[in-house]
């Protein structure tokens, strides 16, 4: 069986596609492929292909944060993306993917939600981040998180007219961005750790730990998924891998033109936050 072969190879620190254990597949990032969205991105990690679109709508803030905009993240496992995906409302796996992507953005304070308040307690911008896997070949969390970040970086604010009509023809400025979190999922099987598992590899993993890390090397979220156990030393190693790989991936997005602006902003506000 293929699973056994994958495990055999891992014993020799080898993988089916010839990658090293701590090597991602080729990542391609396309910015703003969806013109109708306020921001969007398509990320491919090897054969995994995911599109994230950002839409801004008016809404009411949560009672406990009356002066802040609202982030809503969703993921649908579209049956087009894999024979195992079924139609119907999101199941627990899709829900988990969406919530892990959401936590990386939310906990890192990627979006300056306080700048999205229009009328305290009454009216704020709602930021909807929706992930659509087009082809699932593993590691949807990392690909979806990366696509979400790139989409948010590229999001332009629509104009709000006098009568509260949202004018999407005239886009005004960028979505205010603080940070650039990158999520790295580290899988464990037979005492080996590997990043960016393919669908086949995910099937043999005992467990995986998704770790979101900001540009300041701050860990902002973790999620263990899968029923295999971890030791405290395992967790240490996985965090170290995630911190290292997050830097490499972040370079891919900061090389782009559109993100240099928000990157500069992020550093500035990041400093003031630490000072406070």
């Amino acid at each position, binding site marked *: 069986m293929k699973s056994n072969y994958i495990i055999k190879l891992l014993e020799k620190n080898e993988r089916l596609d010839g990658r090293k254990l701590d090597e991602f597949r080729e990542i391609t990032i396309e910015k703003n492929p969806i013109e109708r969205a306020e921001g969007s991105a398509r990320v491919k990690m090897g054969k995994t292909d995911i599109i994230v679109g950002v839409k801004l709508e008016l809404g009411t803030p949560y009672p406990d944060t009356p002066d802040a905009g609202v982030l809503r993240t969703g993921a649908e496992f579209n049956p087009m993306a894999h024979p195992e995906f079924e139609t119907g409302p999101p199941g627990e796996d899709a829900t988990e993917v969406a*919530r892990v992507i959401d*936590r990386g953005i939310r906990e890192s304070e990627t979006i300056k939600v306080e700048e999205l308040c229009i009328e305290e307690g009454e009216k704020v911008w709602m930021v909807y981040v929706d992930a659509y896997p087009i082809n699932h070949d593993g590691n949807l969390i990392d690909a979806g998180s990366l696509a979400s970040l790139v989409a948010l970086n590229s999001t332009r604010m629509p104009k709000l007219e006098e009568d509260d009509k949202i004018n999407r023809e005239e886009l005004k400025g960028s979505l205010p961005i603080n940070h650039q979190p990158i999520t790295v999922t580290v899988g464990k099987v037979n005492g080996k750790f590997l990043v960016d598992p393919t669908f086949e590899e995910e099937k043999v993993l005992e467990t995986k730990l998704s770790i979101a890390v900001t540009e300041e090397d*701050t*860990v*902002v979220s973790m999620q*263990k*998924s899968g*029923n295999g156990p971890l030791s405290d030393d395992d*967790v240490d190693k996985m*965090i170290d891998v995630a911190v290292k790989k997050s830097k490499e991936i972040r370079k891919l997005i900061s090389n782009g033109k559109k993100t240099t602006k928000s990157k500069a902003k992020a550093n500035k506000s990041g400093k003031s936050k630490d000072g406070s």
Partner: protein
Amino acid sequence: MMKTDEKLIIKGKRIDGRKPEDVRKMKMEVGVIPNAEGSALVSFGKTTALASVYGPRPLHPRHLQESDTGLLRYKYDMATFSVDERKRPGPSRREIEISKVSREALEPALFLKKFPRTVVDVFVEILQADGSTRVTAINAASLALADAGVPMRDLVVGLSGGMLDGKIVIDLMGKEDNYCDADIPIAYLPSKKEITLLQMDGRLTPEETKKIVRDVLHASKKVYEKQVEALKKKYSE
């Protein structure tokens, strides 16, 4: 995380008078639901979880049965009255996710392969929520499984840790959870030294993260002892 000007640790004491490393007053009782094969009521301070276990029993519909293993189903549910503002009934996305990771936290403790074609159902109701509900639920589930006589490799202990006003704290209560710098719920098989649930949100350095995980594992001994005591108590009466 929300911000507050209020200090949550004053002179080394938390708002409920605990030291940073203290666990709230725990109450654990098994055999509280006569109809269930196993059940338990667990509270950490005001956070209260009630768990019941049915099974291993035949899984229906039959096409869901697995010929080489039994299945575990776990339902984490918050009662509508368990929080300040009434919770809408029915599973939220949060509850769906918690149910998934909690099931995965318990599976390594069970010998499900010995019970092919069956299911073990664990239902947990959060009756009152004051922080750390998912780990309180796991303690209740662990006890209910043991009470049901489901063979287990180890008890599963749940405990949270976090960072509050720059200090590592154990067992966050609701207010601390809202305003802390980070929150890490963990489930652990103490004799096996296996972490089976690990989540985190907040802002920490990698070193702080590693330290909190270790501190929670260390503090989980007390929770383990309390579980053992609760199980013994049932049979001594």
